[in-house]
């Protein structure tokens, strides 16, 4: 069984191995044992409520219960920019027009911004190569939204994710070469690493503070602003399906997009419903449900802060008021018969028993003109 649970101290080696194989590009989780240890400690302090929930770092592990090993990780930082200054560029437009001359020019412009300060960030998604596919990435990503939904008061109304921007195989970023390097006099990877280590005062010291007019940058640099690295395209697609939008904020180094969503608009949150747990001893008969629904999986989570758990069950376990779980699954989730659990579909299968009524409203929608 695969189950989501809070990260633990003994996950360090598994985490280190994953960080190592991820290589560059994941600046929030560099392959640095001491730093990872610090992150785990912060996460433990958060779940054990030794730090304010609003200042917490929520790291979730995907555990393979057979292997008894963490095979993936994902996280939420409750607030960014609390101890350090959090920078983005905001892609804005400057319009200059002269009616007298009939000239009207729009100049895309980057403004240095701290506007994401105090916002919750979803971050640090890593999945072991051995466990790619089968919706495990989705589970790791979307379990966070179930947590966000359950404990909204600890998070900001809006959450965001920074997506890795465009760079080549050698780690060269076109935007960095055209802009950052002019001011920092170092390689992108070095700057990115320094920034990832939380050492951000050099940004305040070296960063250009005045707006950057994009037409002054070479085409190659301009074209990557707001674009993601090819490796990150699937993650972006997943977040977009979840309701995240690009709203003009980009990374100051590589121009990667920030995508954001209001918690109440996130699909997982919108589609979540409650059910009462029933424990069953036998598998449901196949003919109880239609074939299509049979294949889809449902995420189920308990309502615990300290011992938060999520796993998936087949959709045909879900009834109108109840959900029937096997005893091992119920134990893994730490719930008993009669407890309330929360569920959401794992994949966007178009239709599943829990949600069919909602979709019906749209069935009559015809295209007109």
């Amino acid at each position, binding site marked *: 069984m695969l189950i989501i649970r809070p990260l633990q101290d003994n996950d360090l080696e598994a985490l280190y191995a994953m960080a190592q194989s991820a290589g560059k590009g994941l600046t929030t989780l560099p392959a640095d044992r001491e730093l990872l240890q610090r992150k785990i400690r912060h996460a433990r302090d958060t779940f054990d409520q030794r730090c304010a929930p609003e200042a917490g770092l929520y790291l979730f592990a995907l555990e393979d219960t057979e292997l008894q090993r963490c095979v993936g990780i994902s996280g939420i930082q409750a607030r960014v920019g609390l101890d350090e200054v959090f920078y983005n560029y905001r892609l804005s437009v400057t319009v200059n*027009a*002269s009616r007298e001359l009939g000239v009207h*020019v729009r100049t895309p412009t980057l403004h240095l911004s701290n506007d994401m300060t105090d916002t919750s960030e979803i971050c640090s998604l890593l999945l072991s190569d051995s466990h790619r596919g089968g919706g495990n990435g989705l589970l790791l990503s979307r379990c966070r939204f179930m947590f966000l939904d359950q404990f909204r008061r600890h998070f900001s109304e809006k959450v965001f994710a920074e997506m890795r921007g465009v760079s080549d195989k050698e780690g060269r970023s076109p935007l960095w070469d055209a802009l950052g390097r002019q001011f920092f*006099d170092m390689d992108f990877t070095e700057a990115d690493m*320094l920034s990832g280590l939380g050492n951000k*005062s*050099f940004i305040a010291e070296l960063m*250009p503070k005045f707006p950057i007019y994009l037409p002054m940058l070479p085409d190659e640099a301009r074209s990557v602003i707001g674009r993601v690295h090819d490796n990150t395209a699937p993650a972006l697609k997943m977040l977009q399906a979840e309701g995240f939008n690009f709203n003009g904020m980009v990374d100051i180094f590589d121009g990667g997009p920030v995508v954001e969503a209001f918690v109440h608009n996130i699909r997982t949150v919108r589609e979540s419903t409650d059910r009462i747990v029933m424990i069953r001893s036998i598998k449901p008969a196949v003919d109880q449900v239609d074939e299509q629904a049979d294949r889809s999986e449902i995420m189920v989570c308990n309502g615990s802060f300290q011992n938060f758990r999520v796993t998936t069950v087949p959709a045909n376990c879900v009834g109108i008021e109840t959900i029937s779980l096997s005893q091992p699954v119920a134990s893994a989730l730490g719930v008993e018969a009669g407890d309330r659990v929360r569920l959401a579909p794992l994949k966007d299968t178009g239709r599943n028993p829990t949600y069919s009524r909602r979709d019906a409203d749209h069935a009559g929608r015809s295209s007109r003109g």
Partner: protein
Amino acid sequence: MWLVRPAQPGDLKAILALAEGIGPRLSSTLPRKDEALAAKIEQSVRAFQNAGGTTGPDETLRFLFVLENTDTGDVRGVAGIDSSAGHGQPFYNYRKDALIHASHELGVSNRVDVLYPSHALTGHTLLCAFTIDPELKGSEAFELLSRARLMFIASHRPLFSDHTVVEIQGVQTENGEVPFWDSLGRHFFNMDFETADQHSGALSKTFIAELMPPNPIYVTLLTPEAQAALGQAHEKTRATYELLQREGFQAGAYLDIFDAGPVLEARTDSLKTIVSSLSGKLHGSPTDDGERCLISGGIQAQFRCTVTSMQEALTGDIKVPVKAWHCLGLDAGDSVRVSPC
């Protein structure tokens, strides 16, 4: 003889021909259309009329002078003074300044050059519109035309500001490209350099307020060609530049917003022509020998300036050949001002 005198409506055709014979760059202070130029001459005529009045330093007077060959009556050059740059509107420049971006922790210290939009030279007296028949470049007539303006300032000092500035044409390649414009202005004004330059001469400067990017510009983001052009004078302007340097003009932090050419600055009262000029009474000299010098006389619309040889200037008596009297339209005993060439 060569004579500098106020421009008259009748000089229109000659000035137009001159402006057409020269490159495009002039246009920013000298329009190339009949109507606009006629208006400019008319403005100058009014300025010379008002120059004796109660005009305060707030009102802009825009003087236009021509260089005439008195033997032929040909007009071979033109030059102007705006008593107050911007004439009530902002006078736009970039001011080049440096910020130091230093990180103590990283042990890094970078000098970051920045161009700030600036109006700091607004209201300074501006020498402008200098245009001369290329054949005369570097000649005595060339010097006369340029410096006659300073003789006029010396004789009408209260009309002018304590600082005088001159814009020098910036770098332009042989095929007409202006690297600074191509790297910066073109993106915002959406027109070629020549068009912008023409508008700058012909219209109100409102279009600059409307179209110029309001924020400072990082030099490092300009193209290398544009960076190289910052504060560089066009090679054609060498003679003018050197003459102005001899006068005491110096390039400072200010650049032209279109081509990044240098703006030369000087304290008006320190200009060589003004410091070295002497007033005296006109007397005849029996010979053509003597030191060459600029001599001017007459006020306002009667102002005239020429080059002549001068024999003595002791005791306030200035002895020059009588033909110079005629050229200036003066008689013995009239007040004149001289300055050595």
